Each structure stands twice: as C-alpha cells, then as structure tokens.
C-alpha cells in the first residue's frame, strides 16, 4: 500500500470516527448555538432593575414628585417602597433587597420653598464598585433633572458633554460578546478536542497501531486534526449566522476575511492542542492542561470579558502570547469597525507567528514521541 492511499484511508477512518459518535457531534454543533442564544439574551453588563428605596420621614408634595421621577424612569429602577428612617434599611441592604436608597430630610418641600440649602443623601450598595459607580451616577442624574425641572439653582457655568459611543453606540453586550464567544468555542473545539483525541489513542494503546502503519508521524497528526478544522469552521458559521439572524449583530467588514482569519485561529488552537497532547500522559491531564492553558486565558486574558488595559502589567505582558487576544481584536475590528486587512495585518502577523511556532514545536515533539 502506498503512503498517499494509506493516508487517505486513515483520514476516512478519522472522519468516520467522529461521525459515528453522533452524541459528541451533536454537542459540538449544538453547544455553540445554545451559548450564543443563551448568553446573547442573558449576559448584560449594563445596570437595570435596581431595587430602590426612598426614605421620606415626612411625605409631602416635593417628595412625591421626586418619587414619581424615579418611578418614571422605567427599566432602571424597581421601586421597593418608602421607609421612615435609614436604620430600617440596614438589613435590606445586607440581603440585597435594596441596592440603593434616596434619603430625604424632614419638611423637604417647605424648606426648599423657603430657599434653604437642603441635603439629600444617596446611599448605594458599593459591594460591586462597577455597578455601584454606575448606579450612583444614574441616581445623581435623576436628581439633577428633577432639580432642573422644579427650577432649582443652576450651576453658573455649564459644559454639556455629548458622548458618542463609537462602533457600538448602544453598548449592546451581544455585539461585544460574539467575537469572544467565537474564540472561546474554537478553543474548546479545536484545542481541547485535538489534545484529547490524540491522548486518547495513546491511553487506549491504539497509537501503537498507527505507528506500525506505513504512515509518517506528520501524516498521523494531519489526519487527526484535519476533521476538527472542518468542525471548527462549521461552528464559526453557526455562531455567526445565529448572531446575525437573532441579534442582528453588525457585520461591517468582509465576511471572507473574517472566515479566513477564523481558519487561521482554528489552526492556532489545533497546534495548541497538539502541544498539550505531547506533554500529557492521560486524557485527564490533557483536559486540565487545556483548561489552564487555553480556556481560562481565553476567558480572562484576552479582553473577552475584562479589558486588557485593566490588567496589571505582568498579566498584560502575558496576554500578548494568548492567541485569542489577537483574534478578538481582529473579529471585533471586522465586525464592529468594518476594518480591512490593511488595518489588521499587524494582529494577523502575530497570530500567524504564534501558530507557526506552536505547530513546529508540536509536530516536532510528536514526531519524536512517535518515532
């Protein structure tokens, strides 16, 4: 049997192997879809439905109109109730049934009418400093608007700031989420699956059989990973289609470029999988290594959820070798900014460099192991 036809036979075996295990296949295809739908709807980083309490020891016209103002801003607040004093709120803040409270003084309307300086307190649950900060400025804005509407004192000077959120004007979470999700899914499908499938043959002893076949080590590797390139590619298409059809995620750049870059990233992930597989003795070890080396960095050091710029410098430096970091910049660039290859060649080059490195190391090590 000549080497090329042996290789073809091997490839057919691998494809059959994957196709026969339809449960795994279903998971591989269904999981990304479920994730886009689930997280696209569910994961939001904006702050809404804040449990708000108002402390008004002495209700009057002014407190009523202020309360109406808060109740009127629909979506932002969920009005919990009015209380007579702050002490009543302590336990409610602790168990989270109240996240924010506006504390009004006695004789609120009367004192304002007399032209006095009246203090209003805004208490915010700052356990989470991010949403705490956002909640605080939201409440201050509502109070300012109320104050302006009643004709209260104006600042002597006013600088209006017209803020424009570029590339994602509504700060739609799903637009930011999809590029990261693609990277994440590809990391799982390509890196982890490759690592596991190779290590599995080692663990079950069938790798030995492949070794005595006329296949060269390089061919074994290619035959093993080729089907996963296709699977990964299908996943990208599924995720993008769902994102476009269901969430109308913008697609400002070239789809071809996006798919080409995805293929590059799939190869990167596969190479990582190969490298992991050469170092792992069992599926368990391979899986843990895949989590520690690919999944978590993709989640945390790639700008997917937390911005790179927020990392302390050692981690920022580390993030440079996380392939997903570059891939996410590329995908966001193409989808949200309509960037072309001219804008992204830098990132692409880095990604290609990492891939070449991993692939060389992986294939060489595997060859040594197998040979």
């Amino acid at each position, binding site marked *: 049997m000549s080497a090329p036809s042996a290789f073809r036979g091997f490839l057919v075996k691998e494809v059959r192997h994957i196709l026969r295990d339809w449960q795994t296949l279903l998971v591989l295809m269904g999981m990304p879809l479920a994730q886009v739908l689930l997280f696209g709807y569910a994961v939001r980083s904006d702050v809404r439905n804040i449990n708000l309490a108002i402390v008004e020891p002495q209700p009057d016209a002014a407190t009523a109109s202020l309360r109406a103002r808060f109740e009127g801003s629909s979506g932002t607040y969920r009005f919990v109730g009015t209380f007579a004093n702050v002490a009543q709120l302590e336990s409610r803040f602790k168990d*989270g049934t109240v*996240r924010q409270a506006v504390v009004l003084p006695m004789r609120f309307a009367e004192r304002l009418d007399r032209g006095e300086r009246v203090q209003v307190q805004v208490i915010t649950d700052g356990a989470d*400093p991010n949403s705490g900060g956002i909640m605080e400025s939201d409440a201050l804005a509502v109070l300012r608007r109320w104050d302006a509407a009643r004709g209260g004192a104006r600042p002597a000077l006013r600088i209006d700031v017209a803020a424009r959120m570029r590339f994602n004007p509504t700060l739609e979470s799903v637009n930011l989420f999809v590029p990261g999700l693609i990277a994440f899914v590809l990391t799982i499908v390509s890196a982890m699956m490759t690592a*596991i499938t190779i290590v599995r043959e080692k663990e079950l002893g069938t790798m030995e059989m492949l070794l005595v076949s006329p296949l060269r080590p390089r061919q074994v590797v290619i035959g093993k990973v080729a089907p996963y390139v296709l699977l990964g590619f299908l996943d990208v298409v599924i995720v993008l289609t769902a994102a476009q059809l269901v969430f109308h995620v913008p697609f400002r750049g070239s789809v071809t470029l996006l798919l080409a870059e995805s293929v590059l990233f799939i190869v990167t992930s596969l190479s990582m999988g190969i490298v992991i597989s050469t170092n792992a003795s069992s599926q*368990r070890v391979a899986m843990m290594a895949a989590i*520690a080396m690919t999944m978590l960095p993709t989640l945390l050091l790639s700008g997917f959820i*937390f911005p790179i*710029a927020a990392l302390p410098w050692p981690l920022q430096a580390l993030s440079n070798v996380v392939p997903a970091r570059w891939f996410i910049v590329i995908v966001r660039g193409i989808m949200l900014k309509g960037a072309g290859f001219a804008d992204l060649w830098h990132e692409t080059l880095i990604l290609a460099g990492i891939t070449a490195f991993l692939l060389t190391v992986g294939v060489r090590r595997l060859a040594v192991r197998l040979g």
Partner: protein
Amino acid sequence: MRAILFLVRKEFLQIVRDRATLAQLLFIPFAQLIILSNAATFTIRDTHVVIVDQDRTATSRALAARLEGGRQFLVERVTSSPAEAERELIERRASMVVHIPPRFEQQLVRQRAATLQLSVNAEEGAVAGLSAGYAQRIILDFANDQSATLGVAMRAAGEAAGAAETTVLAPSRRGVLEVRPQQWFNVTRNYKHYMVPAILVSLITIIGTLVTAQNVAREREIGTLEQLNVSPISKMQFIVGKLLPAWLTGMLLFVVGLAAGRLLFGIPLRGPVWLVVVGAGVYLTVALGIGLFISTVTRTQQQTMFVAFFVLMIYLLMSGMFTPLESMPQWAQYVAAATPVRHFVWVMRAVLVRGGGVETVWREIAGLGVAGVAVLALAVRQYHKTTE
C-alpha cells in the same frame, strides 16, 4: 461503613500517587486564584486619550491639563485635526477622543454654556461607559471650578456688552438641593474585594464538578468501573466513597483559598466566617453531585467533559459572578436561580462583603441543602451497576 472507608482510601491513594493529579489539585487553583483576582477587573487606569483642541485658549488648555491630571487618563497628544484623532481611534492607539470645538471659551463666557464632544471606543462595552462617566465627572468639576475664574471674565464681558446682567452667580431663591452620595460596603472601591469571594467559588466548582465527572467517566472508559460494580458495595456506598474524597479536597481548597484571599488581597471578612465554611460544605455537595450526575448520563470522557463545560459556562456567565443579576431578563434570572453557583456566590458576598449573618443567608443555604439531597438521590438512581 468499612467498605466506604476502603473506597475513600483508594481514591486518596490514587490522588497522592499521581503527581499530575496532585499538582492539578493544589497548584492550579492557587495560580488561578492569583491570576484571576488580578485579571478580573474593569478598573482602568491610563486610558489613552487624544484631545482635539480647535479652541486653543487658556480654558481649553486648562481642561486638557485637568484631564491629564487625574490618574485615569493618559493624553497621547493634542491636535487640531479631527481626522487625525479619528485615525488614532480606529487603530486603537487611543480609546477616547475629547473634541473641544472652536469658540469654546467664548461661548462659555457669553452664554454660560458650551458643548464639547466625547468619542469613546465602545468595542469594550463596560469600559467605554466607565471612561465616559469618569471624563464627564472631571469636566463637571472643571466647569464648577471655572465658574470662579471665569466669573470675573463674565462680569467684564457683561459690562463690555453694556448689559447689567451680573447676577449669574446669584443664588436661586428656590432653595438649593445638595446631593451627598455615599457608598456602602466597599469604601475603597476595591473590585477585588467583590471578585475574590466569587472566584473562590468558581475554583472549587470547577475542580469539584470536573474532577468528579471525569473520575467516574475515566473508570468506566478504562474498565475499572466494572471491577467496582462486581464488588459487594452498594450504589450508595460507591457514591459516598467517590464523593467524600473530592468533598474533603474541595473544603481544604476553600479554606486555604479563603486564607490566601485574606492575606494576599485583604478581602473583608465582615460576617461570621464559619457561616461561609458551612455554606461551602453544603454547596460542594451539590456541585459534586452534579458532576457525578453528568458522569452517569454520558459514556466517554470526551462527552463528559463537554457537558461539564457547558454547565460550567452557564455557571460562570449567568450566576451573577461577573455581571449584575438584576440586568438579566426575567427568564434568565430563573435559569440563574436554578444554578447552585448563583446562590453560593451570593451567600459569600452577602456574608463577607456586606456583613450579613445567619438571618440573611439561611434560606439560601437551606435551599442548597435540599438541592444537594435531591441531586445525590438522582445520581444514585441514575447510576447502574450493570452495563447494558
């Protein structure tokens, strides 16, 4: 009982003998705790800013200096060309452009109001909002301060224009509303104090669920599960024997992690610490039970892992760990309520950060207890000693 002890001993021996497993269980969680705690943050310093100054007056320069003065912004350059700034924004060299239009100072003096434009790269959602908010606060402060300096100029301008309107700074007769914001529970606004408790939960969850699910799937795949099946231990004994070692390991990790969080990151321990330890014990039962259940409904290690990952993804992204729960649509909040992680993360934060006690969290812990019993019962039912 003796049978269980033998099984427990076997599991521990397997862990201790296998260097890789031991390393996994001890080293990886702490490396993660340290990296995660530092990585999981939205607090940005040094946002790169380009200022387009088309006004070129003392006021516009003072504003630029003010923006640069805080620790938040790093002014890359000041230019007069909007096109140039746009390029910086697209090529990600700047995250924000502050555009001061021509005649900015003049408008401030004459009309007491002027507009400037802020363009933020919103590719990184949450950050864009925070940066814009921060910039707005600085600009507001700046406006207030300038009232004093420009007040003089305004009066002068008013007189020059022959107008008698010098009452700009006069107080309103309608009372002054003075708002005093106050943040509870995290005065220093340290994001780590909020995140580290949740990260601890995610660590024991990942280790617990994955290790358990994998452990059984592996024994099945390499055939040693058959040996256990033909041994005279009951299903219940088998499951307890499998879970107990993992539970003990998880508890050890949790306690050591809590201490590490306290020592390294100074996380607050405002409520009773024993309460979170008890909570962790109950919670781990649920987490491990789910891992075991996953392994009983799948066949290969690969499948097990995929299902486990899917579950973990839901845990991580929908449990309110990283994003506020209240913002999710109602149905998603129900989904979140069905995950044990959401409840235990909440318990951790309620006790450690908000200083809640038994009266605050007993319902959650009791609920987790009920869930634990249910999941274990289900896993026992689902586990078959025979192979079909």
